[in-house]
Each structure stands twice: as structure tokens, then as C-alpha cells.
């Protein structure tokens, strides 16, 4: 009788296992979806990159052996790095201000940030084109004020890409940084001040080291997203600084060369995964030992 009313440990353990396997069963549809829509395309691209036009590593050899393509790789990395640095430089003070401002104001700023994220990417990029072009609002204002006599070249070059991409990437750095900075007890900074630290010393020796995990994960996200960005560089950048995504689009759309397109995409994927692994290694499990 007691066996029926009080299941003991021996029966409880297999039950837990069966619950787990039933829970696993629930994830099967999602896994199927993942395989069909994400893994299969990647695998087929990988296959085409080594099979077309004929089996071998010719596509990779062509991609990595040509200075033209290497320049595009290099350009992609340097533009992404520049965007990451500018985003971080603007994002950190904004996140810091958000963390210390009254929460009512902060929620207004967040609403604006989210609203901009939800606005169509193409619309936002065109809006920047309108602002930055030779006859755009910025040039007209500066000329009207007599600050410049010739319109500044703000689009179809590195400046345009950096401005447009920084704007799009900002929320991705502000949100994680805000989360990290909010968790820092203001009393720690008060203690630093009483210890004799100037604002600058408190910033460089306490605040930035404490915010480092947020900075690294935000920066990495921005860098990786920038590596694969297409719309903004295509519209605001010039032909002189083409990025990898544009090259892939050209291979596939204009040249119908799936082999080369696949190879370029795969190189991008490998770089991305490597960076992700590095971040996990540095900040994944242990994070900051102090907290």
C-alpha cells in the first residue's frame, strides 16, 4: 500500500529521466525547423563552394589569392572595426548617462532607441542619404552658416558608411552596456572618490574595468554584425570601399557564381564563429571573478 502512496527514490529517478525525454520530444519540431531553414542552406552552400564549377578548393584559392578580394576582406574588417570603435565611444557615455538619469527619462530614451530599431532598415538608410548628400540638410546648413564653401563629401565613402552603420549599431551596444553599468553600486564609485580618485581615475580604473564584459560582448556583436552588413554599405558607401556582403551579392546575383559566393560566405562564417568562441572563452563561464 505504502508503495502506491509514497513513491520512493528508486521510482523517482527514472521518472525524472522520462520527464526529461518527454521534454526533449517537445523540442523536436524546433530542431527540425532549425535543420531545414538554417543548417541545410549552410551545408548546401559549403558543398557548392567546393563542388562548383568543379570539385576542389579552387574557389578558396581564387578568393584568398587575389589582391582585389583580399582588399575587400581587409576593407570589411577595417570598416567593421571603425564602426565598432565609434559605436563604443558614443555608446558608453550614453549607457552611463542612461544608468544614472532618473528612470522616467531613461525610459523615454529607450523608447526612442527601440522605435529606431523597429523602423525599416532601408528607410533609415535612405534618411541618412537625404541628410548627408551634397545638397542634403547638413551640407546646406553648414554652407548657410558660412562654415564651409564647398559641400562636404559625406556619402558614397567611408564617412557615410561609418555614420550610417554606427547609427544602426548603437542600440546593440547601449543595451548590454546599460545592463552592466546599472549593476555597479554607485557607492563603489563614491568609495573610489573618497580614496582620492579623480573622476577620470574612477572611470579608467573602476568603471571601465567593471563594465568590460558588457563592452566586449557589445563590441563583438557590433563587429560581427558589421562584417556581414549589406544594405548600409551598399547605399552609403562608395565603390572604392566595397564590403564582403556586397561581394557575395555580386557573385550570386550578377555573376551567378554560387561557388565563389559560397566560399566568401563561408570565410565570413568561420571568422564570426572564431570571434564568438574567443568571447565565450574570455567572458563566457567565469565572467568577472569579482561578482
Amino acid at each position, binding site marked *: 500500500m505504502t508503495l502506491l502512496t509514497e513513491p520512493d527514490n528508486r521510482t523517482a529517478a527514472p521518472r525524472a529521466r522520462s520527464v526529461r525525454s518527454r521534454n526533449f520530444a517537445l523540442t523536436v519540431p524546433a530542431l527540425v525547423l532549425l535543420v531545414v531553414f538554417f543548417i541545410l542552406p549552410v551545408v548546401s552552400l559549403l558543398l557548392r563552394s567546393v563542388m562548383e564549377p568543379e570539385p576542389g578548393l579552387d574557389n578558396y584559392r581564387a578568393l584568398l589569392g587575389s589582391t582585389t578580394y583580399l582588399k575587400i576582406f581587409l576593407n570589411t574588417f577595417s570598416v567593421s572595426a571603425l564602426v565598432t570603435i565609434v559605436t563604443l565611444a558614443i555608446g558608453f557615455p550614453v549607457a552611463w548617462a542612461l544608468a544614472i538619469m532618473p528612470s522616467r527619462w531613461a525610459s523615454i530614451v529607450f523608447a526612442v532607441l527601440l522605435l529606431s530599431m523597429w523602423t525599416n532598415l532601408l528607410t533609415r538608410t535612405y534618411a541618412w542619404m537625404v541628410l548627408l548628400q551634397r545638397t542634403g540638410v547638413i551640407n546646406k546648413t553648414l554652407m548657410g552658416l558660412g562654415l564651409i564653401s564647398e559641400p562636404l563629401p559625406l556619402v558614397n565613402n567611408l564617412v557615410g558608411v561609418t555614420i550610417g552603420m554606427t547609427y544602426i549599431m548603437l542600440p546593440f551596444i547601449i543595451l548590454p552596456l546599460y545592463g552592466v553599468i546599472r549593476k555597479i*553600486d554607485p*557607492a*563603489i564609485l*563614491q*568609495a*573610489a*572618490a*573618497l*580614496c*582620492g*580618485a*579623480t*573622476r577620470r*581615475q574612477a572611470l579608467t*580604473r*573602476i568603471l571601465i*574595468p*567593471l563594465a568590460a564584459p558588457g563592452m566586449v560582448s557589445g563590441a563583438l556583436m557590433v563587429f560581427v554584425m558589421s562584417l556581414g552588413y549589406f544594405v548600409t554599405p551598399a547605399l552609403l558607401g562608395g565603390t572604392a570601399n566595397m564590403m564582403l556582403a556586397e561581394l557575395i551579392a555580386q557573385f550570386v546575383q550578377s555573376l551567378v557564381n554560387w561557388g565563389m559566393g559560397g566560399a566568401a560566405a563561408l570565410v565570413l562564417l568561420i571568422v564570426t564563429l572564431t570571434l564568438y568562441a574567443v568571447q565565450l572563452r574570455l567572458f563566457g563561464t567565469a565572467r*568577472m*571573478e*569579482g*561578482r
Partner: protein
Amino acid sequence: MTAPFLHIRGLRKDYGIVNAVKDVNLTVERGEFMTFLGPSGSGKSTTLYILAGFENPTAGDILLNGESLIATPSHKRNIGMVFQRYTLFPHLSVGENIAFPLKVRRWGKAAIDARVRKMLQLVRLEGFEDRKPAQMSGGQQQRVALARALAYDPPVLLMDEPLSALDKKLREEIQHEIRRIHQETEVTILYVTHDQEEALRLSDRIAVFSKGVIDQIGTGPELYADPATRFVAEFIGDSDFVTCRILSAKDGRADLSIGAGASISGVPVHGTAVAGGTAALMLRPERLSLRREAAREGTSGLSASVTDITFLGSSIHVAAAAPSGETISVRLPFGHEATSGLSRGDTVSLDFDPETAHVFCG
């Protein structure tokens, strides 16, 4: 006349319409251990934060060695502070935490190392240099915070309820450490607490805060024996209050009567006593003696009936109801002859020395 070491003068702080500190005046001598004692919201922390430079006073001034501190920013005040919350820098080791104020002062490496070692010795945490704050207990973290705050030899050390997050036993242990460190370093300490026992154990003098002002400043025994207000009497030591009627008052002494009882003369009086008016007579449980008969004519006693008897180990606690219905507590040593055979409902006489009682008017 030389200026006092630390002088707080007419200090006031408003947050919008909230008046956190009304008018605080205080002088502290070099090397003194001064405690701010008071209930929650009485303005203790605010006063300390103004001293630290985190807040600007609405009015008033703070003078250290005769010079105003108000215009000096926190990082140039050279004041030490231990906070209620744990404020060690989490990404730095214990040693690096203590070295931090010395590094920003650009001390040499050898001097820093020697100083860190000395500080760790002072707080008895030798060998913990390389630990991260997260690997230390709360009590150890506060000791490191103390070492960090003392590393640069500040003239004044502020402590805002540094032990309130710790359990009672650990708290007492660290109280002893703080006393020893105060004696060894001779640093001037301003200490905030709302625990009267802690205040009594640690301080040279105590400033009792109430609603943004200091009600009374004095040593523990002074505050206990001679409270200036009913608030102080309630806050320091145990006390009961019995309503009485003032018969006459002169030279800080009053004659009074309780209910229909006899007159009691020569009780120290505080506030403006009006003959015929009512007032509160303060009685301390350990200052009453108990006799098992109704109060006699001509003694400073009142009749009461026993309502409860509690055995508390070394002492016995007797609760008795005065004729007015108010409860008076008496604490007697265990085995006191008056307690043998005492039971509820017995009529007893509670006697006291008028000098040790106090009357508060208004």
C-alpha cells in the same frame, strides 16, 4: 582660543520639501570616537554624506582645523569612509584594493607594498592579499574596507553602519576590532548606528539624532544618568514613563505626585514645568527597589500590583501596574529576597531615589 579639530556648524540639508537635516551643531576632538545614534530617517547618514562631500549642505559649514571643507571635492578631502554596503572594488584583489588610494596618490611601489602589509596586519588579514572580494565573508570585506580607508592616514574616518549586514556574534567581534584599531591608530572616528548597545560599547561620546537635530551629546553614562529629553531617555537604556502631576518646580527640581499618592520631592525636571500640570516621570527598571507592602508616607515610592514575573537567568523581571494603569518594570538580581514567593496580584511598593528619576514636561 584654538579652533576645535572638527566643527559642524548650523548644518542643514533639504531635498526638495524634505528636511533631512535641520540644524546640526557639533565639535569633535582629535582622536575622539563620536557616534551618531538615532532612529531611521533622523539624518545621520545625510550628515555623514555632507562630511564626505557627496552632498552639499543647504546651509551651514564644516570646519576641519578651522578651515571649511565645503568647497573641497570628495577626492581631495583626504577623508576615509567605510560604507554600510560592501564597496570593495570587485575586480581588484584585497591587496590591490588597499593599494588603490596609495596608487592614485602616486606612492612608490615599495612604500605601497609596505603599507598594504601593515594595513593587513592591522585588520588581522595577513595572507589574504590575493583574494578577490567575492571570496571573502562580509565581516572580512568590511575589515578590508577599513584597511583601505585607513591606508592613507586620513584625519577623519567615517563609518556608516558598517556592521548592520552582519549577524550579532560577528558584529560584536568586529566591534572589538574597531575599538582596538581606534586605540592603535588614534584616528578620529565618526560612526553611525541605530544600535544603542553598539554606540555604548564603542564611543567616547554619542550624539543622539532625532528628526534632523542632535537632541543631546554626551558620554554613554551621561546620557544614561542625565537624559535631556524623553526621546534620549527612551533611546539609551530601558525606561518606563508614569504620568504625574507637578506640585511645584524650582531650580530644575520638581515636587510631584502620582495619582492619589504622596508627594515626591526633588526630582530633576526637564522642559518648562507648570505647577498643576501633568508630566512624564521616567523610571529605570534597574534603579527601582521593590518592597512587599503598600507605599508608606514619606518615601519616594508608589504602590503597584504585580502583573507578571519573568525569570531571565541572572535577573528577574517584574512587571507591575501603577494606579494609573501604566506598566512599570523592575529588574532584580536572581535570588533577591523580595522575589521569593512573589506572585501576580500582590501589592508592592516601588521605591526610587528622586535624583535618579527624571520628569519630562511638555
